[in-house]
C-alpha cells in the first residue's frame, strides 16, 4: 500500500502538454503516394509485431503444392515430376488468391476496433489507407510465391523461362492480387462481421480457383464448364504466368489479365470508396 503510494507514477505534464500543443507546426500535406506508402509501412510494422500472420502465407502454399502434386501427379501426368511442371505456376496463383481474402477480414477488424475512424478523419488522399494495406499485403503474397517456387524446385520443377520469367510471372500475380483485393475491401465494408466476409469470400474464391485451368487442361471438361473456365480471369492469369515462367512467347493472356485487373480496380475500387465515406 505504502509502496504503491510512494512510487512515482509517470504523470502527464500539464506544462509539457501545453508546450507540445504550442510547438506543433502544420507541415505541407503529403501526396497520395507518400501517404499510401506510409500506410504500407504500417502493414509491415504489423507483420513485425504479429509474425503469426505469416503462418498462412507459408503453410498454405506448402500444403497445396504437396497435396495436389502427389494427389493428381501420377493419375494426370504419369509422374509427379511431369505434373509439377504444369501445376506449379497455377498453384502459385491459387496460393496467392487464397490469401488475398485475409485483406477483407483484416480491414473488417480494423473498422470494428475504431482504427479506421481515425484514418478516415485525416486530411489525406482517401484511398491511401486501403492502397497501403494492399501494398503491405504484396509482401505477404511475395513470401507465398517464393515459398511455392522453392518447394517446386525441390520437387523437380524446372522453369524454362529462368529467373526473369519467374520474376515477371510473380509480378503479374501481384498486380492481379492487388486488384482482386478491392473485391474484399468492398465486401468488408458491406458485411458487418469478419466471419461473413470470410464466408462470402470463400464463395467467390472457390469457383474462381477450381473452375480454372490451374489443375487440369480444360479440354476434357463439359462445354458449360469450358465456357466458364475460358472467361474466368484466373485462367488468363494462369496461362500468362505459365507462358512467362515456361519461357514460351506470351500471347494475349497477359493483356487480358491486365485488362481484368484494371476493370476490377475501376469497379470494386469505386464501390469501395463509395462505401468508405460512411464505413462503420
Amino acid at each position, binding site marked *: 500500500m505504502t509502496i504503491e503510494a510512494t512510487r512515482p507514477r509517470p504523470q502527464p505534464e500539464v506544462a509539457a502538454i501545453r508546450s507540445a500543443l504550442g510547438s506543433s507546426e502544420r507541415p505541407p500535406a503529403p501526396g497520395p503516394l*507518400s501517404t499510401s506508402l506510409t500506410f504500407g509501412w*504500417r502493414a509491415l510494422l504489423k507483420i513485425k509485431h504479429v509474425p503469426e500472420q505469416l503462418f498462412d502465407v507459408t503453410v498454405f502454399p506448402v500444403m497445396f503444392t504437396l497435396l495436389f502434386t502427389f494427389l493428381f501427379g501420377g493419375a494426370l501426368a504419369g509422374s509427379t515430376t511431369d505434373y509439377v511442371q504444369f501445376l506449379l505456376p497455377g498453384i502459385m496463383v491459387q496460393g496467392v488468391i487464397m490469401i488475398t481474402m485475409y485483406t477483407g477480414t483484416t480491414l473488417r477488424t480494423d473498422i470494428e476496433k475504431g482504427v479506421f*475512424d481515425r484514418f478516415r*478523419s*485525416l*486530411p489525406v488522399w482517401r484511398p491511401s489507407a486501403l492502397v497501403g494495406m494492399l501494398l503491405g499485403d504484396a509482401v505477404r503474397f511475395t513470401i507465398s510465391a517464393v515459398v511455392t517456387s522453392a518447394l517446386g524446385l525441390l520437387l523437380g520443377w524446372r522453369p524454362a523461362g529462368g529467373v526473369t520469367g519467374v520474376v515477371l510471372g510473380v509480378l503479374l500475380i501481384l498486380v492481379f492480387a492487388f486488384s482482386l483485393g478491392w473485391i474484399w475491401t468492398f465486401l468488408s465494408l458491406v458485411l458487418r462481421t469478419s466471419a461473413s466476409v470470410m464466408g462470402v469470400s470463400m464463395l467467390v474464391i472457390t469457383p474462381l480457383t477450381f473452375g480454372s485451368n490451374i489443375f487440369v487442361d480444360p479440354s476434357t471438361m463439359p462445354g458449360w464448364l469450358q465456357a466458364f473456365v475460358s472467361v474466368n480471369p484466373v485462367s488468363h492469369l494462369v496461362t500468362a504466368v505459365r507462358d512467362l515462367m515456361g519461357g514460351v512467347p506470351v500471347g494475349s493472356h497477359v493483356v487480358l489479365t491486365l485488362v481484368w485487373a484494371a476493370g476490377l480496380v475501376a469497379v470494386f475500387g469505386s464501390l469501395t470508396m463509395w462505401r468508405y465515406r460512411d464505413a462503420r
Partner: protein
Amino acid sequence: MHGFLGPNGAGKTTTIRVLATLLSPDGGSAQVLGRDVVSQANEVRRRVSLTGQFASVDEDLTGRENLRLLGRLYGYRGQRATRRADELLEAFGLTEAANRQVKKYSGGMRRRIDIAASIVVTPELLFLDEPTTGLDPRSRNEVWDIVRAMVAGGTTVLLTTQYLDEADQLADRISVIDHGKVIAEGTPGQLKASVGSGALTVRVLDPAQRPAARAVLERVLGVEVREEADPSALAASVDSTGPVTRALTALEAEEIALAQLALGQPTLDEVFLALTGHVAEEQDADEEGTA
C-alpha cells in the same frame, strides 16, 4: 469548451461522427468552422481532430509507432515525425511505455495515447467523445487535467459525456441532448439551477423511523420525498439549501437519529427528469450509432 450531455442512445456520438465527417447526415446540413461537412469534408478534416469512444489507435503497434505513423500522414518527414512522437510521449507521461504495443497499455494509458494521437498537429477544434467512460477515478482525473491543459492552451474542445459532473468540471457551456434533439443549453450553473440546487440523501439510523422521517421532510421541504431501495434511505430534490437546515432541526426535534445527511449535485437522471419529464432510458450501445 462545450459539453454535449446525454444518456446512451441520445445521439451524441452520431452528432460527433457527422461533424467529424465520418458519417453523412441523413438530411439537413452541418458546418464546422464555417465549412460544410459534406461538400468541404477535406477542409474540415484539416482543422478538426477526433478522439473516439474507443481508443482508435492501432493496438498491434507500439505507442511511438502509432504517433510516428500519424505524424507522417500529417506530413512530418522521417526524423521530424519521430521527434514529434517523442515530444508527445514525454508530455503525456508515456515515454517508458513508448516501445510497448498499445494492446498492453492500461485503460488510462490508452486514453492518453489516443488523446496524444489527436494533437499530433494541433487541431482548431477537438472532438472528445466520452473520454473517461470506463476509466478508474485516478485515470479520469488525469484525463481531466490533460483536457484542461489543452483548453488553457487555446484548443477548442467539444466534449460528449454521460456524466453531469464531468461536463460540470470541464465545460463552459453544456447542451443536453435527448432523442437526437438539444433539449436544454446553458452554463453548468444555469442547468443546475433549472433542476434545483441538489439531491438530498438522508439515511436514518433505525429503518423503522423512515416513514416518520419522510413525513417530516415532506412537510418542511415542501417537495416529494422518495424512499430508496436501501430501507433506511430517503431522497429528494431541493431548490435551495435553506430548507435543508430547517429539516435537520425538525428531524432532531422529532428525535429521529440520522446516519447520514448529504446534499449532492443533481445526477444526470434528475436533470433529465426535470427537463424531459422522463428518466434517461438506457439503450443498447448498438443503437447509439443509428439513433
